């Protein structure tokens, strides 16, 4: 398994919680940026010739904010420069406030077969609170265009003023719109974002409330036929995100575009987060990499366990043995002993017990190096 990630760093408006690399006043350079992206695809394609990729993911920013012709061109370039498997999963993140029938049609023509729709909440006032540019009606319109398609909806927990009733309504709308996949995650107030001030002022629901929303949402999603396959990800049977599963299985991925990160040949790379710097590098024929780190054997083992324990599937001792030639319970014997009561075993698989999945940092930090 291997994946390709493309970062589209443009937005109409920055959400109040967002700390991703995105720009809302740089539409002037969209064309130049997309041209650079094509160049980077070509550069990496040559370097990684011989590998087969199974998934492509357009993330952002807001990939749906740029002219769909750029997405089409990027996909064409990918198909030209990379070897894709027979039925690749190709996902694009869309903001419900930016779609049109024509855009969706172009995406489909480009080969996109999965959509990740940022709903966040079904309460308009809370969408405003988050700085989202769309309403619940926009979401319903957007998903009506996606009827029959494989799409995912994002649900956010921990919004200012949110109640359990609101969570219920949001999940019902997401499920009712036909989403095959729902990502339900807790708002992370990052330092430097406007919402961080709300957090410091104690205006956001506290950890206990968010945990209660999560438990409630998890039960409701189960009732509606969505099973949890990772801490924040739920789906109808067979609709797991292959692209994301690849991350959690320590599969290789190549990240393209400003701020994108990659993992291949045992190294983790990070592209510059400076838009102009990115373009200058590409135009000069250099990789815009600002950080490149070889993952040590020790680190790799820890990553394997850390990522594996995030998933409902868990850590497979056989798979670990195959990759590292040792027994993971031996390699992490002290941590394993200390955390054993929070784990459950099934055959050679070890996973975090359901009730502890939402407090896993405490458990995982024991395994840290």
């Amino acid at each position, binding site marked *: 398994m291997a994946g390709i990630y493309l970062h589209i760093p443009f937005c109409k408006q920055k959400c109040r919680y967002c700390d991703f690399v995105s720009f809302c006043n740089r539409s002037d350079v969209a064309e130049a940026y997309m041209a650079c992206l094509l160049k980077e695809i070509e550069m990496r394609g040559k370097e990684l010739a011989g590998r087969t990729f199974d998934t492509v993911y357009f993330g952002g920013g807001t990939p749906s904010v740029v002219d769909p012709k750029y997405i089409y061109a990027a996909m064409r370039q990918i198909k030209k420069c990379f070897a894709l498997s027979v039925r690749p999963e190709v996902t694009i993140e869309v903001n419900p406030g930016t779609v049109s029938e024509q855009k969706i049609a172009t995406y489909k023509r480009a080969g996109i077969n999965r959509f990740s729709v940022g709903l966040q909440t079904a309460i308009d006032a809370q969408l405003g609170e988050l700085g989202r540019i769309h309403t619940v009606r926009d979401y319903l319109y957007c998903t009506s265009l996606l009827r029959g398609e494989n799409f995912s909806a994002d649900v956010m927990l921990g919004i200012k003023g949110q109640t359990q009733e609101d969570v219920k309504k949001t999940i019902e709308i997401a499920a009712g719109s036909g989403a095959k996949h729902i990502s339900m995650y807790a708002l992370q107030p990052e330092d430097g974002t406007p919402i961080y001030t709300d957090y410091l002022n104690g205006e956001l629901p506290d*950890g206990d409330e968010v945990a209660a929303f999560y438990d409630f949402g998890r039960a409701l999603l189960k009732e509606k036929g969505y099973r949890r396959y990772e801490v924040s990800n739920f789906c109808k049977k067979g609709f797991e995100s292959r692209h994301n599963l690849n991350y959690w299985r320590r599969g290789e991925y190549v990240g393209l575009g400003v*701020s994108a990160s990659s993992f291949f040949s045992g190294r983790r790379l990070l592209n510059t987060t400076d838009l102009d710097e990115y373009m200058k590098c590409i135009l000069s024929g250099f990789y815009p990499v600002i950080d490149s780190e070889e993952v040590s054997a020790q680190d790799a083992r820890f990553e394997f366990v850390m990522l594996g324990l995030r998933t409902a599937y868990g850590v497979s001792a056989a798979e670990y043995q195959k990759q590292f030639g040792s027994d993971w319970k031996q390699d992490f014997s002290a941590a394993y002993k200390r955390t054993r009561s929070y784990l459950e075993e099934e055959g050679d698989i070890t996973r975090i017990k359901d009730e502890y999945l939402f407090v896993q*940092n405490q458990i995982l930090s024991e395994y840290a190096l």
Partner: protein
Amino acid sequence: MAKASRFLRNFCIIAHIDHGKSTIADRIMELTGQVSKRDMEEQLLDSMDIERERGITIKLTPVRMFYNALDGNEYEFNLIDTPGHVDFTYEVSRSLAACEGALVVVDATQGVEAQTLANVYLALENNLELVPVINKIDLASARIDETKAEIEEVIGLDASEAPCVSAKEGTNIRDILEAVVRCVPPPEGDTDDPLRALIFDSYYDNYKGVILFVRIKDGQVRVGDKIRTFLSERTYDVTEVGAFAPQMQPKGVLLAGEVGYIAASIKSIEDVEVGDTVTFADRPAAAPLPGYKKVQPVVFCGIYPLDGSKFGDLKEAILKLKLNDAALTFEPDNSVALGFGFRCGFLGLLHMEIVQERIEREFNLDIITTAPSVSYLVHKTNGDSFYVDNPSHLPPPAEIDYMEEPIVKAEIYSPPEYLGSIMELCQDKRGVYKNMTYLDERRVRLDYLLPLNEIVYDFFDELKSRTKGYASFDYELAGYQRSKLVKLDILLNGEVCDALSTIVHEDHAYRRGRMLAENLKDAIPRQLFEIPIQAAVGGKIIARETVKAVRKDVLAKCYGGDITRKKKLLEKQKEGKKRMRQVGTVEVPSEVFMEILKTNKDRK
């Protein structure tokens, strides 16, 4: 017979905290040209960072100066700056033994304070000639005549010719120097006698070994002499002698009457004891100098390295501090929760605080300290009796017949408007009222008997906050008294945490237990399971709080770009755990052990 020089004056300064002692010392040095004004760093003698920051003197510091007096002669002055705080009385008594006279500095706006009086008595015991000095005459509220009258009344010194100065402005400083020449006698002693030098301080220099600060009482010492001390068998070759200028300045010889230092490549810290006498190895004096009376520590606490592997470093640090702080006592200790460390004894709370701070600053060690305790006299039912200062060494209640605790005689000085509040505080701290005296219409003195155990807890802070800092306080030990004392244990998830145990009066146990449990509840981070915090006396639970289990701590998303970040976050979290102590199954941050020291403002 060669007498010590008649142009030599050894003196020190006695003053209450903030009456301007160090500033006067600075002015004197300036006037004698010891330090040029340009090079002058404020409060030159307070060389430790802590001293400058807190504006107090902790260590005695000697300095030599030359003064051309009005009588036409040049005099050599050795000034020994001394601490003013009650906890450092021992340091004061050491410097007094090296002097023939003392300046008694009194703030013209404050009058004579308790601590000044205490040190004056010490000086009189040492047969020192006293020279009163009235400072801060530049302030509008200065009451020079009243202060003079007070000095005559309270101390019993003739103040009619006392120099009236402003150290801040540098006014009339020469009067002080003339008074020293006139009133302080030159030292006695014979330069031909066998060497007898009193060690009044010492410190460890990485290159020269232990440096001895000495007052030569008899004889003389120079480089190359073979010396020994009375308490140690070992002999040393003197490698350097010198005076304090105030930096150490080598000179050829130190003669009887002089104050200076001796370096002799002394590598073993344990070989030197302050108060001991240095003499010649081959021609020893017949008997040592009287030395100092051993001080008994009154406040105790456990000191542990934050990082358990740094025990060796902590030991080294404490040994080196001891060299320079004779009043500090210590012995190895072992706690289930905190590992290996030391049980240390101090002269008081400030002394304890200063030592803790010096370990952290001068030796760059992070430490955990346990709640301060005092030394209790335990009488067992089998007739044995012994002292216990560590709560975890207390025998089980069934084996204890009764216990006694140290009591202090406390003098509290305050403006009258705070009397009610102070009395209430003393009442609350099990104090027994003894006496009340109006010193003048602005100042009242209250005498109380108080258990020391209450004072080490939060008495100082309370007194300060209740009197807006106006009250001053001094105490001295006044023996032991039978008392109903119990050991208060703290249980975390059902297990006793030895480092959090304290000995308290029975009547206060419930209140203290509840307060502690509440404080700990806020200080212990939530973990994966619920943690009951219980306070117990003799196995009976008297208070209970609960730290709820954590319910959410996960990073919501973990996609391609998040993996490195998450890895780092977990590593950081693990690093943080290393700073935690394991009490049974519970992880306890090191700060928690200090939590027990905190006072609870709203405990009523």
